[in-house]
């Protein structure tokens, strides 16, 4: 069990710089999404942009994963492997990308192309969850906010997967579930200097997920309905939450 890592303001500043660059890449990739383009092409584009920005693709540093991004089509929840598959009109396309920049990881994702009502819920849930990330609150405050927003709209949150702390390693403690689990009193407090990758993972249908095939990565919804993923890297500071993976400064 690793300890929580506390980052100094200087470290957070470096992560913010990486986060801004990554956010630009994320937005650019999501603009490139159009019918006919293959997920592999999007991945190649993202990798080129990350290297051009002076970083390294975080996901390539995950043992066994050889791509810069995860592209999640329709029923894919997370870890969709980019490949030959072409995007069709009306497909929901989730883009999950991470960059290792000056020694620190940042991680973000966005979903485009699905039904607007469905996407709006995810955006709202992430926004509300990120607002909870201030010192004195608990991890469960974030989780509860995501669950309430998503379930309030009639969708379900994925229980098998979580958000995570982020820093020198892509995945750090603590885990941030999208739903409230355990006793509120036992949930860790947020302290300033923590940096969290808050991920909202939600399904149009039931919460159950399953491995799609034997590639060992791709996770899809059990009932083949679409799934959304929105993620930001958020720093907990004395002045409240700071979303690092955002373009505007």
């Amino acid at each position, binding site marked *: *069990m*690793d*300890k*929580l*890592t*506390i*980052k*100094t*303001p200087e470290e957070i500043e470096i992560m913010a710089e990486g986060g801004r660059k990554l956010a630009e890449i994320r937005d650019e990739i999501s603009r490139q999404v159009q019918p006919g383009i293959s997920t592999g092409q999007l991945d190649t584009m993202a990798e080129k942009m990350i290297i051009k920005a002076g970083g390294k693709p975080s996901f390539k540093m995950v043992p066994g994963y050889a791509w810069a991004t995860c592209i999640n089509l329709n029923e894919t929840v997370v870890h969709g492997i980019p490949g030959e598959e072409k995007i069709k009109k009306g497909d929901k396309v989730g883009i999950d990308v991470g960059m290792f920049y000056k020694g620190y990881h940042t991680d973000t994702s966005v979903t485009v192309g699905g039904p607007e009502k469905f996407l709006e819920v995810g955006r709202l849930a992430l926004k509300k969850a990120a607002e909870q990330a201030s*010192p*004195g609150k608990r*991890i469960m405050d974030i989780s509860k906010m995501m669950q309430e927003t998503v379930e309030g709209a009639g969708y379900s949150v994925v229980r098998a997967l979580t958000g995570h702390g982020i820093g020198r390693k892509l995945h750090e*403690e*603590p*885990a941030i579930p999208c739903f409230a689990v*355990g006793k509120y*009193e*036992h*949930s*860790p*407090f*947020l*302290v*300033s*200097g923590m940096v969290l990758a808050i991920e909202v993972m939600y399904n149009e249908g039931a919460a159950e997920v399953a491995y799609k095939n034997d590639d060992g990565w791709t996770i899809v919804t059990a009932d083949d309905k679409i799934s959304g993923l929105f993620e930001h890297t958020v720093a907990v500071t*004395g002045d409240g939450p700071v979303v690092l993976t955002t373009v505007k400064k």
Partner: protein
Amino acid sequence: MSAPTVFEVEGVVLENLPNTSFRVKVTSSLPDNLTDKILLCHLAGRMRRNWVRLLPGDKVRLEINSLDMSKGRVIYRLK
């Protein structure tokens, strides 16, 4: 399933108390709500086993649980 909730900070020993307890002032700049706070700390078992003695003025590394930030655990005596 318990989430790991501990993190490390540095501090300076102010006072030795009975039962290998100490009052320690936090010197780390982060997390900011802890800076200059005075915590009641005990000596980690590994340090007690190795007869590490602390005196007022010693710089130490503390482990703090986010669930109770009024207490600490001294895990290292810094040079």
